[in-house]
């Protein structure tokens, strides 16, 4: 039976999160969120917007209006390549890149990112590596990431890994920082303590 596919597209005020905008605007870089005039410079200057389900401009509008679910579930925030083009070009001096970071973090906190989407995993792997050694090892981190999110891709990536190894561009072992790597862990722990103190 062929029929016209329809979908209800209406938003009731109580479905929106009234605090969402403020919680993002309160973070460093979020301060000008409310000043957006929806000119679209961010979208048109963005080299990745062609893949996004919502353009950056729409993400700003939706964030401001409290469309929390849609924003956090969007692929836009994960596609942002942090090239800062929007931040530099915005005529209202909105730090769009920082807002994208804030939204990514929020999505991870609320665990609403696309399944098996590698970026959050990658981020966490970097984090672990740094905690342990003070440095990040791209090769190992990426390998781990692939194994965790899409093990089948491992085979595809093997060739590249091998080439890198042969040219001495990927180390199997982890190069540790000089000095005391536990200082890093202590520093990170202290940040948590300090953050709690000021909140």
């Amino acid at each position, binding site marked *: 039976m062929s029929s016209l596919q329809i979908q209800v597209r209406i938003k009731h005020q109580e479905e929106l999160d009234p605090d969402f905008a403020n919680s993002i605007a309160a973070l460093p870089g979020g301060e000008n969120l409310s000043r957006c*005039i*929806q*000119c*679209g*410079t961010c*979208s*048109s*200057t*963005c080299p990745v*917007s*062609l893949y996004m389900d*919502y*353009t950056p*401009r*729409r993400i700003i509008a939706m964030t401001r209006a409290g469309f929390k679910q849609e924003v956090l579930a969007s692929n836009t925030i994960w596609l942002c390549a942090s090239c800062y083009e929007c931040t530099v*070009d915005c*005529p*209202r*001096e909105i730090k769009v890149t920082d807002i994208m970071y804030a939204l990514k973090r929020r999505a991870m906190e609320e665990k609403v990112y696309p399944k098996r989407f590698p970026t959050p995993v990658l981020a966490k792997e970097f984090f672990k590596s740094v905690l342990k050694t003070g440095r990040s090892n791209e090769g190992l981190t990426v390998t781990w990431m692939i194994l965790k999110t899409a093990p089948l891709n491992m085979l595809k990536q093997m060739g590249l890994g091998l080439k890198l190894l042969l040219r001495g561009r990927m180390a199997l072992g982890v190069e540790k920082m000089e000095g005391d790597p536990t200082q890093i862990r202590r520093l990170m722990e202290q940040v948590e303590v300090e953050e709690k103190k000021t909140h």
Partner: protein
Amino acid sequence: MFMENKASDGEQPRVGVYVCYCGMNIASKVDVEALRQFAEKLPNVVVSRTYKFMCSDPGQELIAQDIKEQKLNRIVVASCSPLLHDATFRKACAKAGLNPFYFTMANIREQVSWVTANSAAATKKAKALVAAAVARVAMHEALEKKRVPVHADVMVVGAGISGIHAALLLANAGKKVYLVEREPSIGGHMGQLDKTFPTLDCSACILTPKMSEVKNHPNITLWTLSDVQEVSGFSGNFKVKVKRNPRFVKLELCVACGQCVEACVFKEGRVPDEYNIGLSKHKPIYMPFPQATPASVLIDPNACLKLSRGKCASKCVEACDRAAIDFEQKVEYSEVEVGAIILATGYQLFDATKMPEYGYGKYPNVYTMIELERLVNAAGPTQGEIVMRDGRKPKRVGIIHCVGSRDKRHHPYCSGVCCMVSLKMAHLMRERIDAEVFNFYIDMRTTLKGYEEFYDRVLHDGVNFVRGRVAEVTDWAMTPGEEGKLVIRVEDTLIGVVRRIPVDMVVLATAMEAHDDADDVRRKFNISCSKEGWFLERHPKLAPVSTFSDGIFLAGVCQGPKDIPESVAQAGAAAAEALSLVDKGFVEIEPNSAWIDADTCSGCKTCIPLCPYHAISRDEQKKVAVVNEALCKGCGTCVGACPSGSAQQKLFTDQQLHQEIEGVLNYV
């Protein structure tokens, strides 16, 4: 100390305090009832009242009645800023028979209710200010305003449409007007435009008659190529020194026949023509543009061989049968006295190279709007034929709004006119060359009479509108259709999709901005600038053409972006203000001059060199300093410096200020 203080004139002060609600402007933050009760208990206060609007007639009547019935001899009004309503309440006092200087204001609106978040804190602050006013007013004395006759002539600086209009109004009212213009011709930006929106009148056709009226008006002295050098004096009596640069052509002899230009040893133009925004070149001797007023050629001393190197066959001199050319002309200075000054110095356009993302200066087919105005004009560099720098005719044109406007990195304000200018140009491009036109806008601003109707017309012309700010213009082709074109990348925000639109010509509607030297100019005239560099009006609503310097008025875009009708209307307002000042015949001077107590003056001479107006001299017989009241402007610098406290300033005596300090600190 406070309690025992008697009024300086010996009479026991009887103070009335009037607290204004100002609708909810004050009352929503300050507990005005509590403030009234607090005031009632202050020393010398006889009556304390509140009222919805103290500045209204019934409010003023309240004061007058109490003065008569309660025998009040001091009045305090706690309401808005004294800069706004001091005069109102002084008048009310005077009407009730009280010397108006037995009055003072406590500013509990601008200084309190509008700037304080917390209600209790606001009330507390208001109490302190009222206590200070009550304490201070006890020390007030009866004063008289001095009257000084005014000079009836007026100077208008800048001869664009605003300056021209103001000058003509004043001249027609019988005033002698000095019209000072730094360019070789009057006319300003309006003289460069092709058509004017929304009626599409030819700009030159409506401007030229006014320009020749200026030229022929017996009451107008026109000085072109001239700059104001120095302004001294004050409202009603300004002295202005004007520097007049040489034209190297005798104005009274030249008939602009153009023989000299023909004859010039240069066969081609060599100096970028300012009138045509550099799209054409003129010779060292040239006519600024066909309708230039005064209708006379002039010589650019930097380009002329005779004037720059001293060596030339001077064919121009030979060609001029009226012997109008005069290489010996020198800079001249004129000093005139005027009662009022109108500043109509206009604006400049935003430099589009500051936004490299739009490629101006890099891609030849990117134009600014004013360049296109010249290009479409029949008297322009191409005689009105629309050909681009590469010789092609554009088939598709992209017009970008808001270039440099609404952009915090450049100018945060909206220039106001660019939407309409862009619509007009879109229409002209459709009409003249049948080009496909895209307008890229953020918000369409067509707010005045006939403007929305014009927008409707342009929509119907088939112009494409894309709501989105253009991110970049490049020559980067991603598809065959983009090869050899300028590609505009923009989000069509109404659709939510990024588009790439290849065009032949890009037109940038650049922002209006304050002149680079606006700051120097405002200093000369002792007025203020807003953050963006526009001259600051005295009050945004109620004194929009006045400045903080009495007798100096503003007309046109120098005060902020405007279109032609608004500029003309404002020029009329400025002319009326100037007229009302000079026709009155006198100005009243605020009696806040300084004086020196001869009994305590030690004759140390500290104050004498400090006075910027040379108002203080030494009485060699009595060996004390003396203030010449006619010269004193009332800054109080001598008072601040006097080691013995002998110098005092009316309305700001030591005693009054000390009472005020005590008042703000000791009663709350």
